[in-house]
């Protein structure tokens, strides 16, 4: 069973990866932090039923569910308020304080491309890029076969490349999947 000390070290280790995944759903720093912590708290509440070896996929699974719920709630709220306050809702400048105009535009383009991805592809590609989980763990997190993780990741990368006009790896080669 998970004890408090190991839970805290798990939080320290996974806070950034979970935050980065959740951020691609809510696009708001404070909200992403809240969702990240809520996901950890859910796992903490269920610690008596959690196997230590499956705790990491569980944290990501919980975070993805909570992030998707937040997004849905935001859409419902926007529908009932006829879009009033929608801008204030999603514009998060805390990550852009030090950014140049070029970087801001780049981030906006990435956000549009990521938001255009279907949920299933987005979950796979974000977990692959940020979580540090193995393919088997990602498959466990999403409840899909391992082969599907690979195919969805390829589809997601192709869609992102199409939207962003190609993705180069750090070494300059085209195609971002094999970086």
């Amino acid at each position, binding site marked *: 069973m998970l004890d408090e000390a190991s839970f805290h070290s798990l939080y320290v280790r996974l*806070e950034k990866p979970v935050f*980065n995944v959740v951020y691609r759903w809510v696009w708001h720093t404070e909200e992403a*932090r809240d969702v990240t912590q809520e996901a950890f*708290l859910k796992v903490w509440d269920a610690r008596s039923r959690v196997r230590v070896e499956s705790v990491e996929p569980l944290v990501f699974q919980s975070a993805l569910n909570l992030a998707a719920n937040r997004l849905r709630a935001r859409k419902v709220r926007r529908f009932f308020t006829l879009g009033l306050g929608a801008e204030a809702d999603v514009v998060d400048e805390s990550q852009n304080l030090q950014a140049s105009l070029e970087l801001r535009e780049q981030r906006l383009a990435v956000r549009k491309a990521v938001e255009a991805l279907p949920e299933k592809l987005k979950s796979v590609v974000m977990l692959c890029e940020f979580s540090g989980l193995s393919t088997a763990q990602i498959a466990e997190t999403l409840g899909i076969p391992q082969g599907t993780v690979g195919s969805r990741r390829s589809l997601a990368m192709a869609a992102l490349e199409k939207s962003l*006009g190609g993705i180069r790896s750090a070494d300059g080669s085209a195609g*971002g999947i094999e*970086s």
Partner: protein
Amino acid sequence: MKKEHVFEQFEPPPYGLSRMKARMAERRASRILRPVLVLGVVATVLAVVFWPRAPEVDFAPSLAAMNSMEGDVMARGDTSIELMKSTNPRVVLVRAMVASGGPETALGSK
């Protein structure tokens, strides 16, 4: 566009772990407090439902006594009450009379 820009790593806000610990402590406190609150509400509801009430007052003897005073007239100020005969021992019949017109009316009629 470079891949590291597409999947840029953002830093979460600082003091995440302290905040997390505070939230855990908050939950622990509310977990202790919740049963106490629930017990309090249940106890209040039970007390309201099962609290012994005062026994119902039986007016019959006093009504019978009043009926026996048939024909008596009680007068106070410009009001008088006459007790009437009632065939039902549980009912008291009275006739109330109020002298109409105060001093002002009397002056006006002059």
